[in-house]
């Protein structure tokens, strides 16, 4: 990859935006929130985040908000990811490595099918305000 200048970055961003505005978007946002506390990072949350971005890019998806958050109190199940898709129950997935992250985008986000064997109930009681 050649070194990108700020001007090139600006052009890429504006072409990305005009491409998005051409597409039919229902305006509802999808949220993917990755637990990136020390526990999450130690368990591989960075790989999961990279895999989310790569899969989103590969499938040309938009209207997705990707956020990092702290520990959700589920350190035993890290990396954990909170996925909010309109029309689907808010779901927390555990043990999300790169392959599971890809599956979450391709199955949960794109086909509205939950990903089995990785669903954890909810954040720990002392984390919920």
């Amino acid at each position, binding site marked *: 990859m050649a070194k990108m200048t*700020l001007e090139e*970055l600006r052009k890429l961003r504006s072409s990305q935006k005009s491409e998005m505005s051409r597409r039919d978007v229902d305006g509802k946002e999808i949220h993917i929130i990755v637990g990136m506390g020390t526990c999450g990072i130690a368990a591989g949350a960075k790989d999961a985040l990279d895999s*989310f971005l790569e899969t989103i890019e590969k499938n040309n998806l938009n209207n997705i908000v990707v956020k*990092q958050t702290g520990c959700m109190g589920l350190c035993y199940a890290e990396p954990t990811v909170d996925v909010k898709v309109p029309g689907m129950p808010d779901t927390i997935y555990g043990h999300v490595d790169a392959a599971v992250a890809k599956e979450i985008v391709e199955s949960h986000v794109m086909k509205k099918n939950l990903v089995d064997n990785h669903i954890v109930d909810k954040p720990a009681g*002392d984390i919920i305000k």
Partner: protein
Amino acid sequence: MHYSLSDMILDLIQNSIEAKAERITLDLIRSDNYLTVRLCDNGCGMTEGELKKVSDPFYTDGIKHSQRKIGLGIPFLIQTVEQTDGRFEIHSEKNMGTSLDIQFNLGNVDTPPEGDWPGLFRQAFCFEGDYELVINRKLVSDDKRETGYTLSRIELKEVLGDFNDSAAMILLRDYMRSQEEDLLSQLKEIH
């Protein structure tokens, strides 16, 4: 302890953001055997008494995370530099800010690997809030030649908008990786 130096530094940057700093600068200066890290912020700072307690892993101010009883960022750093023949200084002034000056000895076999710098920069830029974070990444060769790049969060935010929009985050990732790859290819030419 953290697996890589970049993860350790993430904790320290997060301290600055949580100290409500509006301006944070991170200098990462890599020479053959040393990595010098300077982190300065204009956050809430600490009194002399508070500063003495930061090395205690069982001390936290009780404000940032009200239910937590530990604060491990600085203790992990101290443990690492002590075990690996590094150096570390912290200065802080109440209501003025805090600065950290760290030298990691990369020649010591127990020093953790550096980790993924562009990944760290992206993470450090994506916390919520309006803080400015300026990162100076610099490589210094044996004959003192310097090469590097600078990233400014405000500048990139102006270009990309909200970093949490996945499309913007992908471009941010590509931009940071391209700066790093270019730097490393320059390094190869020097050697």
